[in-house]
């Protein structure tokens, strides 16, 4: 289980990511900021899962299920969007 300082540090990082992400969006970089926003979201979500939900200390089975879910979401997005991208 992470100690309190780690959790507080994660919190600060999350807030920082939120700030940067919002700032980037305001820069109006065309479609570039969309990619950056999503990357920041993945990073934040990863931090919450890894530290706050302490998957870091979770069993292999839990990691497998968490990772597996991400893969299935990617299948849905990847194969689904592929239709519109190639129409």
């Amino acid at each position: 289980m992470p100690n309190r300082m780690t959790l507080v540090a994660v919190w600060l990082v999350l807030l920082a990511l939120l700030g940067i992400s919002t700032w980037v969006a305001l820069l109006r970089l065309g479609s570039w900021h969309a990619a950056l926003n999503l990357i920041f979201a993945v990073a934040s979500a990863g931090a919450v899962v890894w530290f706050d939900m302490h998957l870091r200390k979770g069993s292999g089975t839990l990691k497998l299920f968490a990772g597996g879910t991400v893969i299935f979401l990617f299948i849905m997005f990847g194969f689904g969007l592929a239709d519109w991208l190639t129409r």
Partner: protein
Amino acid sequence: MSDALPAVHEQYQVATQQLAADRLGLWVFLASEAMLFGAVFFSLAVYHYIHPAAMHAATDQLDLSMGAVGTAVLLSSSTTMALAVKAAGEGRRWETLVALIGTVVLGLAFEAIKVHDWFDEFGKGLYPPAGPPFPLPQPAARLFFHLYFVSTGLHAVHLAVGILLVAGLVIMQVSGRLTLPERMVTVEMVGLYWQFVDIVWIFLYPTLYLVSR
């Protein structure tokens, strides 16, 4: 699942086995929830792709500052929840109670922000089926708001369930029925659910407020 005493149910042999089963059960449940929201995100992604201009116009109608504040509130609640789980594991009753109450307050604050947003948007005519006329000329902007209301609504319902669960923990804690650290697993389960709901918002925020801006 774990509202009984920490005693081991008959189908289990040892307490650690039961704990592992509870934990796995919750993660599997969250996997299922992730797919539930995944379908909404997929629809949003498709419409962002086919109607970039309309999505851009629609996104501009949202109040970014409220969105950002709400996100910060939820991220903070994730941390207080994590602190509550940590304190519960160490049997620190007061610390757990304070962190849990903090979580409930932050959760309520987020819901208040969201409800305020909704009223605001309804007033601007952004709820397409009712209220004042829809202000944007692009028909596809309506698609955005239809998905916006469904996705934020679904998230708010999930968060409301989370708030009830955490409030339940607070009551159990105050009335002394939540013995710690023995019943720490209960706090942990609620915590996992809470943080999952936060993660949904971590993705909803950029998808609705940022990517098409």
